[in-house]
């Protein structure tokens, strides 16, 4: 059964313009870790199937998983930025020209410090 974790690898294989750079660059490895981490955390159920420590009356089981929603938001910002910079480096270009007039959206709303998510440049 294919797990989600082997798909970033396959994307790397097909995401072609290899040039002089190795297929698995450090930035791509960072993105892969960010994508895999939520799976490891959420599927490792014994690590959080417990009552204590409680937080504001919430058993650990509940607040820990809700905390992972926020952590995942941050990881997604990092992964998007890593892939963007990696692709920019590969092409030796600044970045793709995004559609002008794209309002950029609420990209940064989920996490402070998500610089650049609303910049209107296409992340590849």
């Amino acid at each position, binding site marked *: 059964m294919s797990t989600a974790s082997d798909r970033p690898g396959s994307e790397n294989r*097909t995401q072609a313009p290899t040039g002089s750079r190795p297929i698995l660059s450090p930035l791509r490895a960072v993105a892969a870790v960010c994508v895999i981490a939520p799976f490891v955390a959420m599927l490792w159920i014994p690590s959080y199937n417990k009552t204590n420590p409680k937080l504001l009356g919430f058993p650990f089981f509940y607040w820990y998983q809700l905390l992972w929603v926020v952590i995942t938001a941050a990881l997604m910002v990092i992964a998007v930025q890593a892939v963007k910079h990696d692709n920019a480096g590969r092409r030796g270009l600044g970045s793709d020209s995004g559609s002008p007039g794209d309002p950029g959206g609420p990209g940064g709303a989920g996490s402070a410090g998500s610089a650049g998510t609303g910049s209107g440049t296409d992340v590849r």
Partner: protein
Amino acid sequence: MAIYSAAAAITGRHASGAVLAAAAPGKAVNGTELGVLTFFFVAVAILGFFAARWRRSGVDRKHLHEWGLGGRSFGGWVTWFLLGGDLYTAYTFVAVPAALFGAGALSFFAVPYTILVWPLVFIFLPRLWSVSRKHGYVTPADFIKARHGSSSLSLAVAVTGIVATMPYIALQLVGIQACLDVIGIGGSGSTFEKDLPLFIAFAVLAAYTYTSGLRAPALIAFVKDTLIYLTIIVAIIYIPMRIPGGWNHIFDAAQTRLTTPNPKTGKPAGSILLAKGNSIPYATLAVGSAKALFMYPHAQIGVLATKSRNTVRRNLAALTAYSLMLGLIALLGYMAIAAHFTTASLNNNAQHAVPALFDWAFPSWFAGVAFSAVAIGALVPAAIMSIAAANLFTRNIWVDFIRPQASPQEQTQVSQLVSLLVKFGALAFVLGLDATSAINFQLLGGVLILQTFPAIVFGLYTRYFHRWALLLGWASGIVYGALVAWWQRSATQHHFGSQVAQIPWTHQKAYIACTALVVNLVVLVVTNLVLRAVHAPAGVDQTAPEDYEHVESQGEPVAAPVVA
């Protein structure tokens, strides 16, 4: 989750503790609640018709891209609201809290499910967007046909999408019905009288979907999300204040109720932690649902309607806000327990847990706002789902098998009509089945739709898998999943009683969708080796590797020529 609701129905009948909260259904109509709900409903209907003129490009007014994908023009903000409207539905507001109400921790799988969705989106949806934009695909089945050169595989994906979507739409109606019941309209009188309000709501929805297409739910989603965020924030702060002891007491009360053995079976309904043996069901429900979500045509439509490859990726962090909201809404189920609602006091329908809680906790006018949030939160996805199913029918059944010469105008007209048919089909579902079954069929939808995962997702990366092997794998997964689901009995149902079943040759239970996917993959790999060995004709691939990285360039026509 139906398995758990069924358990709750039994517990509730016997756990007749002190009922502090009034039993909602069956009482007189609450005029204030009904008035507020009607006000929002009319406002939203006006917005829906107005949406036809919103962001209209004017170029291809009659093309299916316009009606069915909103002109593929949606940027970041609209996409955030549209995807939220897609993904967070009556399932979130009514079914998940009802499942926690009935069975506890196991139902909290909805939180890891909606966490894991986003990394999956990050991985493969930009590729699907690129290849679809490059070639002008309107549906995922369009992509399958061009990639694998197989109309039958495309038909399989299209039919699965339509079939799996119908009960999902039906579930939205169950959510609206739960609100109407609690307000006091419905629940008594003849069938016609009882369902008339629902019927009117749906006729209006059908009318503005017909005229405005995807623009209507996209515009209404703004109102919907505003109402929902308002309701949830107020509920999360205000209701625990109404319950003496706050959050500590809410979890304690839930634990006490859930672990009390049912006098009939001698078994407790659940616990606020996962019982032994429930880890695998929890994990498979989460992963299976996450993988299934973006196989649904209505979820993909939200992505294909965006104007740039990275609109969705840029939105990922913000989209997780919906997951947080879902987790908090789920806990309303425990609040309903702490407020002394039992299944018996809810008219033996655990689906009433959240509306009844709102009715009890809030002043009437705000309860009306909350019901509007739930009802509009159900109408938006119902509209998107019917549009997605209609697109599938038009592109992959009507054009491919019935009228290949259909013009873009004709395609749009067929889609408009089918969107009506799909909705009335869903209405028939609701009128014909009880609420518990509707949720169960929705989970069956997940079992079915997940079987299209190999054809779509593997197809985005490789042509290693032969089209016939993909078709055989799909068929095996569907047959296995449907049969096993059919065989599941519960105390209240002979069939489809549970979506968690034993893995063959083990004592371990898991979500049927995942077991069926394993069957699918085994058949796929084995038949693929055979077909490749005998050099079966592989079909023509109309896509090129660079299409999957395609980025919109300035001035490119949105509606690329249709690939025949």
